C-alpha cells in the first residue's frame, strides 16, 4: 500500500458517517442508537456523525425485524449509499426476527436481502455495543476497500451493564464474550 492508500484507509476508519433506517422496529434500538451520540457515550469521539441523507453516509444502521413494507425501502436506501459502504444490523430483530419469528407481516431476517457486515445482538443492545459495532464496521469498510477483508460477518458480543468497553478500532481490543467485566476494564 502506498502512502495515499494508507491515509485513505485510516481516514475511512476514523470518519464513519451513519444513516439510520427503521425496518419495523419497536423503537427500542433506535433510542439506543441516539443514546450512543449523547454526552454519556459520545460516539463523535470516533468521528461518528448521524447524517440526514443516505448519499452522505458510509454505514447503514438498520433496526427492526424487516416488515414487508420495509423491504423495498431498505433496498432503495442501500442502493443510494455510495461505496465503500457497510451495513450494521442493530438489535436481535434484524439478525433473527427475534420474538416476531413466523409472523406473516415479516420478510426477515435482514441478511436475506442485504449483505450484513456487523450484527449487534441485544434487545435492545447497549449503546457501548452499538459504538463497538460501528467502529468494527468502519474498519471492515476500510479494509474491504483496500481488498484486505474476506466477505464475512462479525458479531459484537453482548455487553452487560457496567461492562464499559473502550471502543477500540481494531479486532484485538474487542472483548471476548467470556471475559469478565474487570478484565475488559483493564
Amino acid at each position, binding site marked *: 500500500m502506498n502512502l495515499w492508500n494508507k*491515509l*485513505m484507509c*485510516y*481516514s*475511512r476508519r*476514523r*470518519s464513519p*458517517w451513519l444513516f439510520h433506517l427503521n425496518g419495523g422496529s419497536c423503537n427500542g434500538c433506535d433510542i439506543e442508537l441516539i443514546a450512543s451520540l449523547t*454526552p454519556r457515550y*459520545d460516539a*463523535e*469521539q470516533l*468521528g461518528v456523525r448521524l*447524517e*440526514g*441523507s443516505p*448519499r*452522505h453516509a*458510509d454505514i447503514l444502521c438498520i433496526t427492526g425485524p424487516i416488515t414487508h413494507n420495509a423491504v423495498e425501502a431498505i433496498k432503495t436506501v442501500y442502493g*443510494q449509499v*455510495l*461505496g*465503500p459502504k457497510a451495513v450494521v444490523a442493530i438489535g436481535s430483530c434484524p439478525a433473527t426476527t427475534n420474538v416476531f419469528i413466523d409472523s406473516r407481516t415479516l420478510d426477515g431476517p435482514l441478511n436475506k436481502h442485504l449483505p450484513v457486515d456487523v450484527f449487534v445482538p441485544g434487545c435492545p443492545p447497549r449503546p457501548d455495543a452499538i459504538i463497538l459495532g460501528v467502529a468494527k464496521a468502519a474498519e471492515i469498510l476500510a479494509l474491504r*476497500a483496500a481488498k484486505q477483508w474476506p466477505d464475512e460477518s462479525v458479531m459484537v458480543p453482548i455487553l452487560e451493564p457496567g461492562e464499559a468497553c473502550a471502543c477500540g478500532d481494531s479486532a484485538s481490543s474487542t472483548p471476548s464474550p467470556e471475559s469478565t467485566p474487570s478484565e475488559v476494564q483493564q
Partner: protein
Amino acid sequence: MNLTTALARLLIFPGLLFAVPAAWFFLWVERKAVALMQGRIGPPFMQPFYDFIKLLGKGTPPRSGIAGLLMRAWPVLAVSSAAGAVGLLPVLPASGGFEGDLILLLALLELPSMCIIAAGFSSRSIFGEIGSAREAVLSVSYNVVFLLAILSIAASQHTFRLEALAQIPPSSVPWLASLLHWLGILAVLICLPAKLHLNPFSLPNAEQEIYSGPMVEYAGPELAMWELSHGLEWVAATGLVATLAAPHVTAGWAAILIFVGLCFGIVLLLSVVASATARLAIDTTVRFYWQVTLIFAVLAISSALFMRFRS
C-alpha cells in the same frame, strides 16, 4: 498590486496554503466547542481532515446531461470564490490592494450562497428545493444589514479600498467615525450566523427537517468540496470582521498573530451562540433581520451621511 503579489496572496497567505488548514481548524473548533458546551469530549483534532480525505475516496452517483454538469460545477465554483475572498483580505500591512476590491470581496462572499441555491434547485430533490428556497429568503434578509453596514463605512471614508477601511481614519469627528466603525462591525457580526448557516439561523441545512437541504443529493468528492467551501467561508467571513476590528500594526508577524487570534475568538463566540440556541422558523428569522437589525443599518447610514456633510 502586481501579478506576483496577487498570486502570492491568492495561493500562500492569506490564500489557499493558509486558508485550507485554517478552514479545517475552524470546522474542528466549531464542532469541539459545541461538544464541550454539551458536556461531551467531541471529535479529535484532525477530524475535518479525515472527513475530507474519506469523502474524496467515495463514489459519486451517475449524473448525465446539463443538470449533471451543473451539479458538478457548483461546488467547484463555491470553493474557488470562497478562496478568492480569503485571498483579498488585507491581513498584512501595506500588502497592496486596488480601488474597488471591497466590491469584489462582497461579491465573492455572496457567490457560495448563490451556488448553494443553484445546487439545491439543480438536484431536483424536493428537500433540496425547499432548502434552496430557504437559503434564498435568508440571503435576502441578512444581506440588507450586511451590505448597508459595510457600505456605510465605505461611504463615510470615500473609498472602496479594503486597506483604508481596515483602519479607523483620522476625521473631523473622531468619536463618530469610531462609533460608526464599531457599529458596522457589530452589524456584520450579527449577520454571520445566517451567512454560515449556524444556529439559530441554520434553516437551509436543517438536517432533522429537510435532510440537509441543498446538499441532499451530493456525495463523495463533491460533498468534500462543499465542506471545504463552508470552511473557507468561515475563514473569509470571520477574517473580514477580524481585519475590520484589528488594531493597526506595522510588523507583519504581529498582524498575522492578531488576525488569527481574532478569527479564533469570533469562531468560538459563534459556536457558543450556535450551541446555546435552537433553530428559528423562517418567518421569525426574516422578521428578526428586517425589524430588529434594521436599526443598525439606519444608524450606520444616517451617521455616514452626517459625516459626509460635516467633512
